[in-house]
């Protein structure tokens, strides 16, 4: 149906920035998240799919159609911009039906669709307001409404929640995901917030410096990071990674245990209490190890402790390049 296939696409500006030979596939009806640190090429990828930037090389297919040379309008997509890009002089209703007006959809059909979409995004009582009279979350919903009213099978979103507060962000996350599943849209969603990525996505693509670091389901990225970069990016707090022999050894904070006797000798540096659990930061031969403890932890800084973990929870990475090792010799 309307799956998106990006094949060996490159885009640079005079040899700097952009993306380099990236390729991936978003299945129809799936939510694909592009994740990565600032400047890694997420927005560029999205804008290439939308046709707002031209590719230097490679092809883009949407729903089996080669759209590489088509204009944004011909690609039959909808898009939610990070800044919402609402028209400040038009009220909510006019903003939402902007695209329908462009395409000359009749008044009756327009009104019917508007009523349905306004209900869906919870804006029915605000249709006469101008964008400047709305809260951040309401503006976001207008942008969302404008994107879904055309019922385009593909919806692209560029960090739509980045300027909302934590509570609203959580609500909108659930709403967007629900909407996407109900309407069966194929969605590409850009974020640099890994919680957003993990909770919403069917598939996550982690990017770094213009290339794809790892492409997989959220649990794959968490449980089998393909590199130390992924390991350090996913999870709060991220995986502990320490040099061990000629490689890097990684272990998640929840897999490290504090032991009375034996274990690796370490010293407590600080304790972060999070409510349901506490993160104990320990000094292990100059490296910091985070340990997750259930509930409240009353250890004082300076206390000597022993650290231990199960061998099956260990991840090994190559020292240079950081690639995951499946064979490598295991410690203990």
């Amino acid at each position: 149906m309307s799956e998106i296939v990006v094949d060996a696409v490159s885009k640079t500006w005079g040899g700097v920035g952009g993306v380099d030979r990236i390729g991936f596939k978003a299945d129809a009806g799936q939510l694909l998240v592009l994740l990565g640190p600032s400047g890694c090429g997420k927005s560029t990828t999205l804008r290439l799919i939308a046709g707002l930037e031209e590719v230097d090389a490679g092809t883009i297919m949407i729903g089996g159609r080669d759209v590489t040379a088509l204009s944004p309008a011909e690609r039959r997509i909808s898009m939610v911009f990070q800044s919402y890009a609402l028209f400040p002089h038009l009220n909510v209703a006019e903003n939402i039906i902007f695209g329908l007006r462009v395409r000359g959809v009749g008044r009756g059909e327009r009104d019917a669709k508007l009523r349905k979409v306004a209900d869906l995004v919870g804006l029915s009582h605000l249709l006469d307001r101008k964008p400047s009279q709305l809260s951040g979350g309401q503006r976001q919903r207008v942008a969302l409404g404008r994107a879904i009213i055309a019922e385009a099978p593909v919806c692209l979103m560029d960090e739509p929640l980045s300027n909302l507060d934590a509570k609203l962000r959580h609500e909108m996350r659930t709403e967007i995901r629900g909407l996407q599943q109900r309407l069966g849209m194929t969605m590409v969603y850009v974020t640099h917030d890994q919680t957003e990525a993990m909770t919403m996505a069917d598939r996550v693509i982690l990017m770094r410096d213009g290339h794809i670091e790892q492409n997989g389901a959220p649990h794959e990225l968490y449980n089998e990071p393909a590199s130390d970069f992924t390991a350090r990016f996913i999870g709060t707090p991220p995986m502990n990674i320490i040099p061990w022999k000629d490689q890097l050894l990684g272990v998640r904070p929840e897999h490290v245990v504090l032991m009375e006797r034996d274990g690796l000798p370490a010293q407590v540096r600080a304790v972060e209490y999070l409510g349901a659990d506490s993160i104990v930061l320990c000094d292990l031969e100059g490296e910091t190890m985070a340990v997750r403890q259930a509930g409240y932890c009353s250890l004082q800084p300076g206390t000597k402790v022993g650290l231990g973990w199960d061998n099956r929870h260990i991840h090994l990475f190559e020292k240079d390049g950081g690639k995951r090792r499946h064979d490598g010799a295991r410690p203990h």
Partner: protein
Amino acid sequence: MVAAAMISARPKTAKRLRWAANANAWLLLLPALVLLATFTHYPILATLYHSFFSLGRSGPATFVGIENYQAMLEDDVFWQVLRNNLVFALATVPASIALALLMAVWVDRKITGRSFLRLAFFTPTVLPMIAVANIWLFFYTPDYGLLDQILRFFGFSGHNWLGDPGTVMTCLIVMVVWKEAGFFMIFYLAALQTIPPELKEAASVEGAGRWYFFRRVTLPLLMPTTLFISINALINSFKLVDQLVIMTKGGPNNASSLLLYYIYEVAFNFWDTTYAATLTVTLIAILAVIAITKFVYLDRRIHYQ
């Protein structure tokens, strides 16, 4: 005791502080206030006062009520210059705005030589009106002026452009549009650059073409600027008369005279200062109406934020 004293003292301190802040503000405003009062407000009031008195060439000036205004309404030249001024305003304001918008949209795009074009469009603004009038005087000169030379090249006969009551106004209008448009372009250019580029992208994703976007988004978003410019252009059309001094002296037969130039003539050629005061009050009233319309009525209707 001590606490009670402190509490009762507090409002006084607050009042004193507020008074000090107020005095401070007024002191800061004082220089501007003095200058405005001496050179703007007082002259306006003095003019108004004089417009109710007789000229007093022989003997002291006497109060004559609205006699000067009645004379003004019976003055054919007054009506002619007022009509000229209206024609001048109605022609120059829309034309210079349209031209300014066109140039701004053109040089806002990514084209080669963009900075050069912007500068070229802006140049007429930098030139003083006197210089511009001299340049155009050469264009319009009969026989060996640029316009006539071009016409002659194509086999047409020459024309006394500024000497013919039928063409003189058009000639002046064209010149003023040329001079003003570059200045207004700068405002449009600034306004165009505040329109976020995502709006264009969002519209293009929705399938809007360039013309649709311009009509439905750019133009409405430029409305505050258009309003600002049109008010300025309108006021300018009553204020700018330098070109008349150089080019036509209001002639032929007052065909190109404007209200302000007429005031100048009455005051400094005919030395009828009270009638000049009467005309000045009329001009100020016209300008005040324009300004009030902008602030009270249009501002509220056009601003979308």
